[in-house]
């Protein structure tokens, strides 16, 4: 009833080409932004911020990155973890070599290192497609994972092989390291994620987004209407890796606080991929849904089981999580291959015409 576009006439193509052409959507977005920037930091407990919101935002950012490559351009990658790692280690090296430069700048710069590697490992996409390309991304994953362990220069020769995040400040308040408050960390992450989401949304709704989707849906036809396949794919690799790299840097600096090289292994790649699949291939909103669901599932599972008085060991929770995630993936693919985002769209469509079916 409230979700109607009746009476909203667009008189310019500019208005009709907007990302959110419907007024209610714009109001909804405004409400989400206000609550994310104002209400949550004021009201939420430290626990909620550090355990739920911060990880959620970072994972959503990584999913968005992978979604650009896999969902929009149709190149299935299993190398997400590796590209995230590149961002994290690049940021660590940069901030230890040049501690004077603001950490937020280094986080945003470190993404470019992932971009460089993304382009490098995307080069084979000129000749190979489909599963073959997926295997090529596995090559990058295993090679990068190996480098994080073997190349001790990356960890500044720390004997444990792990990196310890130093304290850095923003506006003379600590923003990383043990003394940073959750509220401040959250706001910084939220700003970065909001900015990058806005960029991504602009991209996918414009010329470049159409080029990506054209390559995904039918690469030969795309080539015949003049879309340069190779450059389009490489651009997808570049931008996707940038997002993953920034997400990786944020993950270590703002969430974990320290990192063993193992956190960027193939399991990380899979986790992000599952978020993309469940959330919805080819949907930025879906990336947020997917991140919330996959990350939230074990937490909810644990609390629900505790709540009903079943006390089970954490290992069992983990096993059940694995099973549910696996089953969920198959289920989503069967019910709606385009994931939660598509279900959300259908719901909105139904709301628009409610109470009539058409």
């Amino acid at each position, binding site marked *: 009833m409230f979700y109607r576009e009746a009476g909203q006439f667009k008189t310019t193509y500019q208005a009709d080409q907007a990302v959110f052409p419907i007024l209610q959507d714009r109001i909804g977005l405004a409400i989400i932004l206000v609550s994310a920037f104002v209400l949550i930091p004021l009201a939420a407990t430290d626990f909620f911020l550090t355990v739920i919101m911060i990880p959620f935002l970072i994972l959503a950012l990584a999913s968005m990155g992978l979604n650009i490559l896999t969902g929009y351009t149709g190149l299935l990658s299993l190398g997400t973890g590796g590209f995230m790692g590149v961002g994290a280690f690049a940021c660590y090296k940069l901030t230890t070599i040049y501690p004077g430069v603001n950490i937020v700048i280094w986080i945003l710069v470190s993404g470019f290192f992932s971009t460089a590697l993304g382009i490098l490992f995307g080069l084979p996409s000129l000749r190979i497609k489909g599963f073959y390309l997926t295997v090529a991304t596995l090559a990058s994953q295993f090679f990068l994972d190996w480098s994080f362990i073997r190349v001790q220069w990356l960890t500044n020769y720390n004997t444990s092989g792990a990196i310890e995040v130093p304290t850095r400040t923003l506006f003379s308040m600590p923003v990383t390291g043990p003394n940073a408050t959750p509220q401040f960390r959250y706001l910084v992450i939220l700003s970065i994620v909001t900015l990058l989401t806005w960029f991504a949304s602009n991209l996918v709704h414009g*010329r*470049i987004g*159409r080029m990506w989707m054209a390559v995904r849906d039918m690469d*030969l*036809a795309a*080539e015949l209407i003049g*879309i340069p396949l190779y450059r389009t794919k490489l651009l997808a690799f570049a931008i996707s890796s940038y997002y993953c790299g920034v997400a990786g840097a944020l993950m270590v600096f703002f969430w974990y606080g320290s990192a063993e090289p193992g956190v960027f292994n193939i399991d990380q790649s899979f986790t992000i991929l599952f978020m993309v699949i469940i959330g919805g291939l080819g949907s930025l909103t879906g990336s947020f849904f997917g991140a919330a669901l996959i990350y939230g599932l074990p937490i909810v599972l644990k609390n629900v089981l505790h709540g009903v008085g079943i006390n089970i060991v954490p290992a069992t929770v983990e096993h059940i999580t694995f099973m549910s995630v696996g089953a969920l993936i198959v289920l989503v693919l069967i019910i709606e291959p385009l994931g939660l985002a598509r279900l959300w769209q259908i719901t909105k469509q139904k709301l628009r015409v409610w109470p009539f079916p058409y």
Partner: protein
Amino acid sequence: MKAPGGPEVAAGDVLLSVEDVSLAFGGVKAVNDVSFDIRKGEIRAIIGPNGAGKTSMLNIINGFYHPQQGRITFKGETRAKMRPHDAAAGGIARTFQNVALFRGMTSLDNIMAGRTLRMNKNLFWQLLRFGPAMKEEVEHRARVEEIIDFLKIQEIRRTPVGRLPYGLQKRVELGRALAMEPELLLLDEPMAGMNLEEKEDMSRFILDVNDHFGTTVALIEHDMGVVMDLSDRVVVLDHGVKIADGTPDQVKSNQAVIDAYLGVAH
């Protein structure tokens, strides 16, 4: 708007000529020593029985296949090899025998994608979707709306093309090709699988495109009635070899053509 590359060709002059072109897959000769030309502004039909090499011929013209022998001259430029992307940039657009739309995208986005080559605002502006990028987007949207009006597909603008019936898909595909504002439009069986009404509509569109925009059209079609009515000149292929070339009337009375279609006792 002038297409990039190559000099302007006056109406009636040769726009594209194919000389002694041969293409083989392994031992199979798909196209064998074929020559013909397409003049600016005409509707040129390529006909022939199944397996005659018609689609391969189109694939050669827009650079998707590279012929082992022969030359192709387009707008006065002769070439042996060309990437599909260059063909598109040079002003050759086409539709496909089995609709090759971008299934996950809406009709509007499909047709907008056809304008990719004419859009040039860089990554920076694309990130912001503001200023020049938005201006460009709106300009092209206006052009695309003209095509949508022309093809009468206003109400399916926002429908993902995967959900459209076949006839409409063909129409959207034509729209995508038109969005490229091509000089030469290649249509691969634009009326296959259509009912009479849809065929009439499509014929109308092809004639209008040819009339209004002066677009040169080369089309493959099996419906002889349509071919005879629409085209200015017809080239007939059989088993990869050219067996006739001329006006519809000349071709209709050609003995080799009649034999190829009806079969002949050997």
